[in-house]
């Protein structure tokens, strides 16, 4: 029987400290994603507006089980029929095709 999803860091390893940080970051989320749902705690929605700037408020969510927060406003391109907005856990890696990481320029 395995007690953890991720491999427990080896205390005798020279990289124990960084491995422990990674373990702690991932283990709880990896467990939650198996037994719970992705959920939005608060924020994440704005209304119609006279301009192109929308403010979804302070978003607190658990995409993929990861505690994620985001705030600020979004400036949309004009004359678009379907602009899909999601919150993801990671804003540092390249998004999938057709997706832009805000506040990168919207194409």
């Amino acid at each position, binding site marked *: 029987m395995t007690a953890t999803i991720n491999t427990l860091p080896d205390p005798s390893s020279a990289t124990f400290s960084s491995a422990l940080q990674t373990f702690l970051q991932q283990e709880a989320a990896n467990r939650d994603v*198996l037994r719970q749902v992705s959920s*939005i705690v608060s924020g994440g929605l704005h209304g*119609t507006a006279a301009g*192109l700037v929308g403010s979804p408020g302070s978003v607190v969510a658990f995409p993929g089980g990861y505690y994620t927060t985001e705030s600020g406003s979004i400036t949309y391109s*004009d004359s678009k029929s*379907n602009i*899909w907005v999601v919150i993801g856990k990671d804003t540092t890696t390249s998004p999938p095709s057709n*997706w832009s990481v805000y506040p990168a320029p919207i194409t």
Partner: protein
Amino acid sequence: MINSVSATQPTWPDESIPLMRVTTSGGAITVVDDLRPLGALPLKANIRAQRIDHTLINTESGTLFTNEGATGTVILTLPAAAIGLEYEFYIQANQTFTITAGSGDTIRSGTNVSTAAGTVSNNTVGNMIRIVAINSTEWIARTITGTWTFA
């Protein structure tokens, strides 16, 4: 993250939750559809291949049971009906899959209803039934595919 290209619902990126679908026109945000309820969907469905008889328990509510791999009849006995409990059953193997209600409970789909502590069964691959308890004695089919036998 934003996708302003897809006319139809795109594939959500991994580890993300949909928030909104926005339409802009004339320099304004004209339509905002709230997609947050989609984020409440389970990330992974609970699916179990059940090859032997089993008495279901409350904590298995929400699970899809199949008879994949079964080589004979499999009988699943429901727990006592309690409002909100829900189970789904799918015929994956060409064997009889029988769901038995608890004492005093019935299972209904339209005009078809089992006897108290009765059964619904099927053995045709591809058929499925999803039942939910609406009170302490009645299970009803929320969705049903194929002709199930109520007894």
